[in-house]
């Protein structure tokens, strides 16, 4: 994309709207200090990126806050920068950035909001910015080596590389660990601390400190130490029981009481909530209704008896042809037989119902039995969790002698309180459970006999709920006591070991118990430690890649442009390349870039500290050009703001050649801003073929700069070219036509110069017509004859006239035009 025109309003030094058209080759802007030159460069930068280098790198961001808006523009007035960019020969885009509240901005294309620049891809967003500015040059060179690394990574596109490195380094430096791993590490560390405290285990401790690498030797040392303490001939797989026996024997000599006081961790299969759910099912109102219904049919036995009686009668009736009763010998009516059959069928139905109810009752009895079994199991489980503790009650006086110190008093109180509280809870729970069991047995009896009213089921449910609540509370109580009792048990165990002199034996047992966990934690530690190596490998890899980019390709590019700026008279002192510094061991120092310099073949300390300001300036220019050219920037223009500060005349001239190369050799559109009028004249004189655009900022008011467009070449130079060309034998008809058109430009330039000199009015030479010229010459007092001749040049110099019938270019006519131009210039003493 090339810049075609720029419209600025309300931004930085531009209060009122200004429009600048750009040449496709070179556009030069001259402005004295404080005339708004840098505002143009910043307007363009802001349009492209929504920010500027100066604001981004300001040390105190607050001071830059609100600096985009011109101070004379009201906060509700429009503030924007708009550019028309040429994308292809016949395709343009017009993009506008509008300043909004809180320093934010919105990009519009052409009037619709868009998130980013059109034709920008992810790769081009971070590409080298097409701006060369003094503060950026100094910022990059004079920054610290580490900041320079970051700056280079952005400019040279290896910021992705740096980002990867930063992420991996951050990850490796302080990795986040899962809680289970942290717990395991804490446990193992406690074990290692315990080993370290035992003089008899010092050799083992030393080996364990060396980690996973010495794990096998550590195991050997542990087993070797254990074997010394157990009876001769003990196998390695029997070490733990032998050590436990040894410890018990020794402890028994100093303490004979029961010492297990910890409660068992909760692992009950039936939780109170499960029991509640089951009770709700077994002792439901539906069950009560079923039992009540069954009670109404308790005469089931009589039904069965009558059924059998009627069956017998029917059998008799079926076998007797005379239809006489075998018992009373009366004549039987056939209708009676039918009535008996009917009666028996009814009984059959009632019998089936009864059978179903019996089955139902059997199910209820079974469910009641299971429920009671579960309740008993849950209560027994809770009781057994604290069984050891309760048994310890008898040893409380002895425990008091063992945990007698002030620091141990807390543990003893914990044990005593737990025993008292838990015992009371268990007593009540067991008593209530027994009552429920008795009631359940009673109800089972009534159900079996079909005499349960159903109401007793409701009452049983209420009593069972109470027991389940107690079970729930008891379980919570045990869980609350568990950690405090565990702590007390450890203290007690330690105290016993101290008195029995079995501390090292206990630690050996702990080691044998925890060896698997220890070896796994050692493996984990090795993995975590190895992250340092991963970090180091990443840093070295990234540094090697960065060095490849910086010290080879980039150094070559920069050196190429740097040499173009130097002059033959320069001494052999200057920039000699970039490098990444190394440590003594040959590894790279992390994220640093040094700028090297040489003086007559001898390497200097650093270019930054040893080179002159002008050399550093030249180096900065070379670096900026190299990074821009090497980037994937979609913008084919390069804005160069005040590039020749601290350069002498020779180097200034060299840099003009660089600008020419950028434009003609590399086809880049150059936008050059400077306060050095003489140098800009030399730029235009030395690159006349560019035929670029030239603006002079001739004044500055609160509304903004006064900008005049001037001719790229001065009229004298253009006139000399035309005069030389018409004398040439090789001048073709087409060239003559072009020369005639050029005369029209020269006339415009001379008339504009006269206007400025005599009328003190600036005049744009763009689209100057014969009437404008006539009026200006009249006001300047040019004699009529000369005036008429000058205006006459417009009859054939306009390209539109060249298409008219009868037109043909004429050498002598052009020669006359040239003479008239000189006559007018002489008259005005230009």
């Amino acid at each position, binding site marked *: 994309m090339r810049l075609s025109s720029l419209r600025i309003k309300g931004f930085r030094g531009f209060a009122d709207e200004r429009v600048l058209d750009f040449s496709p080759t070179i556009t030069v802007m001259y402005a004295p200090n404080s005339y708004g030159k840098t505002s143009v460069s910043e307007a363009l930068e802001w349009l492209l990126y929504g920010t500027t280098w100066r604001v981004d790198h300001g040390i105190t961001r607050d001071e830059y806050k609100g600096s985009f808006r011109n101070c004379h523009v009201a906060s509700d007035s429009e503030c924007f920068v708009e550019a028309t960019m040429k994308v292809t020969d016949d395709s343009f885009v017009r993009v506008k950035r509008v300043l909004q509240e809180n320093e934010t901005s919105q990009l519009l294309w052409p009037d619709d909001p868009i998130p980013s620049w059109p034709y920008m891809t992810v*790769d081009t967003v971070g590409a*080298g910015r097409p701006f060369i500015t003094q503060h950026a040059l100094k910022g990059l060179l004079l920054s610290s080596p580490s900041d320079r690394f970051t700056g280079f990574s952005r400019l*040279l*596109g*290896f910021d*992705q*590389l740096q980002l*990867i490195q930063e*992420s*991996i380094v*951050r*990850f490796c430096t302080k*990795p*986040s*660990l*899962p809680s*289970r*791993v942290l717990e*395991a590490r804490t446990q193992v560390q406690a074990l290692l601390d315990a080993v370290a405290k035992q003089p008899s285990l010092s050799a083992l401790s030393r080996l364990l400190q060396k980690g996973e690498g010495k794990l096998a030797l550590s195991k050997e040392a542990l087993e070797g130490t254990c074997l010394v303490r157990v009876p001769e001939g003990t196998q390695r797989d029997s070490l733990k029981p032998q050590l436990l026996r040894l410890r018990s024997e020794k402890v028994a000599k100093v303490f004979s009481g029961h010492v297990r006081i910890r409660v068992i961790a909760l692992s009950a299969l039936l939780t109170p909530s499960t029991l509640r759910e089951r009770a709700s099912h077994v002792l439901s109102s539906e069950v009560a209704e079923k039992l009540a219904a069954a009670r109404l049919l308790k005469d089931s036995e009589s039904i069965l008896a009558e059924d059998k009686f009627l069956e017998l009668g029917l059998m008799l009736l079926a076998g007797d042809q005379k239809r006489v009763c075998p018992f009373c010998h009366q004549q039987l009516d056939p209708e009676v037989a039918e009535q008996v059959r009917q009666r028996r069928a009814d009984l059959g139905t009632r019998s089936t119902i009864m059978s179903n109810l019996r089955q139902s009752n059997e199910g209820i009895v079974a469910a009641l039995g299971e429920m009671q079994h579960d309740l008993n199991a849950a209560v027994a489980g809770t009781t057994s969790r604290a069984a050891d503790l309760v048994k310890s009650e008898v040893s409380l006086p002895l425990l008091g002698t063992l945990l007698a110190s002030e620091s141990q008093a807390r543990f003893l109180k914990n044990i005593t309180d737990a025993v008292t509280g838990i015992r009371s809870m268990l007593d009540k729970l067991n008593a209530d459970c027994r009552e429920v069991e008795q009631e359940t047995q009673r109800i089972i009896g009534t159900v079996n006999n079909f005499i349960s009213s159903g109401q007793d089921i409701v009452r049983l449910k209420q009593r069972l709920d109470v027991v389940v609540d107690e079970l729930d509370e008891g379980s919570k109580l045990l869980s609350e006591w568990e950690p405090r009792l565990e702590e007390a048990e450890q203290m007690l165990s330690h105290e016993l070991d101290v008195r029995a002199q079995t501390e090292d034996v206990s630690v050996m047992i702990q080691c044998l118990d925890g060896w*698997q966990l220890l070896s*796994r*934690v050692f*493996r*984990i530690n090795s*993995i*975590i430690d*190895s*992250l340092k*190596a*991963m970090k180091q*490998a*990443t840093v070295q*890899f*990234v540094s090697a*890649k*960065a060095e490849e*980019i910086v010290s080879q*390709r*980039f150094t070559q590019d920069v050196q190429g442009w740097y040499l173009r700026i130097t002059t033959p008279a320069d001494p052999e002192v200057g920039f000699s390349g970039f490098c990444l510094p190394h440590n003594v061991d040959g590894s790279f120092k992390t994220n640093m870039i040094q700028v090297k310099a040489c003086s007559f073949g001898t390497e200097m300390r650093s270019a930054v500290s040893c080179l002159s300001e002008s050399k550093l300036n030249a180096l900065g220019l070379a670096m900026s050009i190299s*990074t821009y050219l*090497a*980037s994937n920037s979609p913008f084919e223009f390069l804005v160069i703001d005040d590039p020749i500060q601290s350069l002498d005349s020779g180097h200034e001239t060299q840099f003009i050649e660089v600008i020419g190369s950028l434009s003609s050799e590399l086809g880049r559109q150059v936008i050059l801003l400077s306060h050095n009028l003489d140098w800009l004249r030399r730029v235009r004189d030395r690159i006349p073929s560019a035929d670029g655009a030239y603006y002079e900022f001739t004044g500055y008011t609160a509304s903004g700069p006064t900008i005049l467009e001037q001719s790229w070449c001065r009229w004298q130079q253009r006139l000399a070219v035309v005069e030389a060309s018409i004398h040439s034998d090789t001048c073709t008809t087409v060239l003559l036509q072009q020369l005639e058109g050029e005369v029209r430009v020269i006339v415009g330039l001379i008339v504009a110069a006269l206007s400025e000199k005599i009328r003190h009015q600036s005049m744009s030479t763009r689209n100057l017509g014969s009437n404008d010229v006539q009026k200006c010459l009249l006001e300047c007092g040019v004699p009529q004859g000369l005036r008429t001749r000058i205006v006459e040049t417009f009859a054939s110099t306009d390209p539109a006239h060249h298409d008219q019938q009868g037109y043909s270019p004429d050498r002598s006519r052009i020669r006359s035009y040239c003479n008239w131009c000189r006559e007018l210039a002489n008259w005005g003493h230009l």
Partner: protein
Amino acid sequence: MPEDATNKRQVLDELDAALEDPIHRRLLQSFIGDDPVASMEEELKKILLEALADET
């Protein structure tokens, strides 16, 4: 500028080849998504829990 330096996947592949420890390579392979550090931490958690369960 250098295409090979800006291609994230290629850089990661090259770094992967430069790493010798298989665990480091496994961690690097999890360098993906918008938050690669979180992704690597997640993978490290898996590796450590495997080691704790002795699954390695």
